[in-house]
Each structure stands twice: as C-alpha cells, then as structure tokens.
C-alpha cells in the first residue's frame, strides 16, 4: 500500500484486497497518514480484487474520521466485485465512486 499527499488530498493505492485479515491494519495505517489539513481521501481501487464487509467497515471508519471535519472519501476505479458490495450496502451514497463500470 502506498500513500501520496496532493494538496489537501491523501491518495492511497496498491491495495490488492481488503478483508477481515487486514482491515484493521489498513484502517490504522491510513489514519496514521491522515493529516489535520486533509479534506479528502482517494482510494485507488483498480487493483483491488476483493472487498468484504470487514474491509468495508474499515472504509466506513475512515469515512467517519474525515467526514467529522467536513471531508470526503472517493473510491477510484473499483472492480465489479467491489462496486457490487458498495452498491448492495448503499455505501455508494456516502463514498463518491469515480470511474465507469466496465462494459
């Protein structure tokens, strides 16, 4: 997993999978990189092949952290499985999903 700060955005990429075995460590690592002036977290999910409810819970925890100060989360280029779980749980209404679904 790699981090890059661009102005007031924290960009997170290189996540291959987000599940019960790594969700807590993922959430803690992202929180450790989060600065008080960050207003947005971008998760580049094009390489993320699998997300479960525990991984989703970690994203929700991070959303709570940044939304409490008016920030937002964007999910960039999610694969179909990830997009499906976001939509089934209606979290696509909280996170901004960027990137068209594959044809």
């Amino acid at each position: 997993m790699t981090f890059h700060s661009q102005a007031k955005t924290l960009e997170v990429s290189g996540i291959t999978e987000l599940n019960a075995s790594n969700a807590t460590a993922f959430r803690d690592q992202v929180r450790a990189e989060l600065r008080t002036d960050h207003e947005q977290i971008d998760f580049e999910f094009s390489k993320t092949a699998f997300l479960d409810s525990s991984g989703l819970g970690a994203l929700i925890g991070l959303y709570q952290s940044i939304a409490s100060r008016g920030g937002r989360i964007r999910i960039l280029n999610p694969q179909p499985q990830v997009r499906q779980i976001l939509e089934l749980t209606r979290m696509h209404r909280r996170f901004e999903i960027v990137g068209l679904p594959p044809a």
Partner: protein
Amino acid sequence: MKSRRDAPSPRPPRRKGRGTAVPKPPAEPAAGTAEAAAPGSESEPTLGIRCPCTYQDVRAATRTIRTFLEQQGLGRTEVEGWELVAVEAGNNAVKHASRPPSHRPVGFDVQVTRDHVELRVTDHTAGFDLPPIATLPDPRSEHGRGLFLMRMLSDELRYLRRAGGNCLVVRKRRGPVQPVTAA
C-alpha cells in the same frame, strides 16, 4: 463449449468416505484440507474443506471454493457472489468462535447441482438466531453487514444448531452455464 460435467484430467483416485478426491489447487496451501468430487462423476460435484479457525485460512479456503465453482462453469458474477458469501460466513465462524481461540476447524461444504449451488459452513460457536429479514445497520456502523450481504446474494439462508457444530446453509439457483476455460 465444455459442459459443466466435463471431467478434469487426470482424475485422482477415490478417497474413502467422500467420493472422488481432487487435490486442492496448489495456490492455497494454508486452507486446510480440501476434497472434491470431480465433475463428470456419478454424484453431483462437491467440495469439502476443513481449515484452521483464522481469518487468513478462511480467506484461503474461499479462494479454493472460487476456483472450484469456476471449474463447474458458473459465471463470474455468480462466482464472486459465492466467494463473498463464503468469506462472510467463514469470518463469522472465526469472529464468534469460543475464547480462547478455537482450535476446531471451520468447515465448508459446497455442492453444485444442475439447478442450484449449496454452501454449508460449519462453525463451533455458541450459535446465533438468524434474523428473518435482511436489514442494514446504521450507515455509520463499521459492523453488521455480513448477514445482510449473504441474504442479498442468496435465495435461501438457514442456520442449524447442532451438537457437533452449527451449520449455516446457503442456497441459490444457478445462472446460465458458462464456458469453462482450461486452467
């Protein structure tokens, strides 16, 4: 197009008590033990896995289930749905296992018939009451979506309390048979 009943070759020898045995795919060494009845055998294709009660081993086991379902000709969306259902069920078995951490395995049994796929996940927990309706938790909650997802991705969900291990039974009608690509 290969039918879902085409047998892989070579077919391994028959193992006592569980029909034809197929070695677990080599990519999943941590998943515990896996046995499968080959497509094309007299019985319906089945897969049985017993894995250690950890999140990592459950995840490895569910990758094996994914591979097995792909070999039966299920489409990508169906396979991904089953993979998520198996993960959520397995994670619950780990999360609610007795303390100190259980040394009793988590069991996965998959059966593919002409019309349905059925997954049975055996846990050694105190058990729980399966709610009759799928509901989402408060959007701010980090927990409580696993059962909802299993409900949404299946046709039937039952929880059987048993002395030798409780069993979550998930069943769903199959979609159209997909072409099977060679490994």
